[in-house]
């Protein structure tokens, strides 16, 4: 297989397979999780402003009092790489072009140099949280193969994408093909690992906010 053939495959059938597995996987997992349902709460509710599922979906993005001080790396590193990933994935002009070619939807991108910078910051933040996972007794204790694996499949697309844009290490075509392949691996893995929190985080926050909001507690 030549470089071009490789690129053609990952851009064509490879992408189709990955996107299909991703969509089916997400759908399957959402049904598998949320169809379990829950019992109605028969206790009399207490109504307090700000105490509801939706409030918690948003409010939980803000660290509770005192927590940043207790675990600064988790919060600062966490915010940095999540926001960084969002910028790189959704505001890099070529990514927007790809979405446009498939769905017709388009939005303004950010300057390439800025996205480059964000990619570097994102990778740095991811390395910092990885080191924190290795160093911090609680994180190390909780970590399983899945934690190292999901870190890797999240990191590789950013790294290969950045290397491709910078024309570093490998010929552009090869690096671009590797970049697309790494994204495809991420897409396939996402629904079946802890990366699925990208979807369930909203449900989890909502349930928590709802259950406690029933008691009039704004969590």
């Amino acid at each position, binding site marked *: 297989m030549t470089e071009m053939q490789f690129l053609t495959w990952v851009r064509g059938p490879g992408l189709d397979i990955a996107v299909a597995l991703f969509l089916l996987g997400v759908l399957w*997992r959402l049904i598998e999780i949320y169809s*379990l349902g829950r019992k109605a709460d028969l*206790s009399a509710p207490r109504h307090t402003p700000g105490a509801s599922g939706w409030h918690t979906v948003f409010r939980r993005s803000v660290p509770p009092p005192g927590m940043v001080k207790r*675990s600064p790396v988790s919060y600062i590193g966490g915010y940095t790489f999540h926001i960084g990933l969002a910028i790189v994935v959704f505001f890099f002009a070529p990514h927007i072009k790809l979405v446009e070619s498939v769905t017709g939807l388009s939005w303004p991108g950010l300057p390439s140099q800025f996205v480059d910078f964000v990619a570097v910051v994102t990778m740095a933040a991811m390395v910092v949280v990885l080191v924190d996972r290795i160093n911090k007794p609680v994180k190390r*204790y909780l970590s399983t193969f899945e934690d190292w694996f999901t870190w890797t499949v999240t990191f590789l697309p950013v790294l290969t994408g950045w290397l491709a844009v910078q024309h570093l290490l490998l010929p552009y075509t090869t690096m671009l093909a590797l970049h697309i392949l790494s994204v495809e691996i991420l897409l396939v893995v996402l629904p079946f690992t802890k990366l699925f929190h990208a979807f369930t985080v909203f449900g*989890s926050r909502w349930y*928590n906010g709802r259950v406690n909001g*029933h008691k009039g507690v704004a969590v």
Partner: protein
Amino acid sequence: MSASLDKGVRVLKEVIDAPIASYFNSCVHCGLCAEACLFYTETGDPKYTPIHKLEPLRRIYEQEYTLLGRVKKRLGLSKPVTDAELAEWQELVYNSCTLCGRCSVVCPVGNDIVYMVRKFREGMSASGNAPEGIKGAAQRTITIGSPMGVKLPAVKAQMKHVEDDTGIPIPLDAEGAEYMVMLSSMEIINFPEYLGAIAKIMKQAGKTWTLCSTAFEATNAGMQIGNSDLARVIVSRIVDGAERLKVKTVISPECGHAYTALRWEGANLVGRPFTFEVKHIIEVLGEFQAQGLLKTEGKETDRLTFHDPCQLARRGGVIHQQRSLMNQVAANFVEMPDAGFMNWCCGGGGGASAIEEGEELRLEAFKKKKSQLDAVKPDRLVTACANCRIVLEEGLEHYQMDIPVVGLTEMLAEHIPDTATKSAEQQGA
């Protein structure tokens, strides 16, 4: 698989619902819940990380309710939950968890971890892995009527004593009263001032109230061990009593988990909404205060601080009333760091105080309370939970801290002028 393990696993499968599935799928192993748990912060031992306390439940979820987990189980690639493992987890699910719920309010993905621990306890209890201390308390509540073995004659003796002391009659089984007042054994045996305080407060407010001969005990160890069948029997007594006496409101005593058991779990345990309201005594006092029915004289002048019982504040939604009540009778009320919604547990909630073998760990965890107290150096500590009070007193004694602990209700009652209750009594007669 032993019969008890089989039963436990069956119960665990039953308690898993969409929220639990969503929570397990959302966890990213960030470990922030550990930072919110006093058993971790005070020991530094990662095994006390709240989400780790649920590991057997997580595996059952994965093996039973996910496609990949079922495939892995079929192929013999998954680790089954064993008797030995659940026995090992007793310490994590009971001794080192007071159901304080701090983990649930810090988890960045929104996992309600304490919700899961409460459900996990159902399976632990069904598989025979609940601690002897709480099991005994639950059994005594079922057979004798109270976890400390208190029976009606003891309550009657206490009533008589309070009547002699205050000159106010204590109504028993008065049909149609507005309020039915519940007690905790702790109050009957250790803190009799509570009942006298209620008598004075109700008298001044001009409210009708009663005790109930078939339901005086509010605590619910059935809920604490995680046995809904026992919890239901205990709650049903109160429901039956309240409906028989046709009261409007049942008042949960100064006891955190009794409030949770009755206010939030009660209707779900009996399977229908209540026909009466349930309020914590602090909520009732807050209403009296707002309506001008709680008139006090003078103020405490020493430095006072307030310990929020977890089940009242963070888990119960009563956060502001205690503060405005404190301010009514305390001239020098100071707040501890993290007071209110984020307060730290005394270390003995959720049944933990009944676990003898957990005492050493409890005292270790008490260092958190100690540091909160050291920050404000109060002369006295006020709270609104008899269990917190006992645990606080034990901890303070252990660390040789000379800080008396008082109940908020009785402190308020001490400031009700005798003339108010006396004249009201004469008017009533």
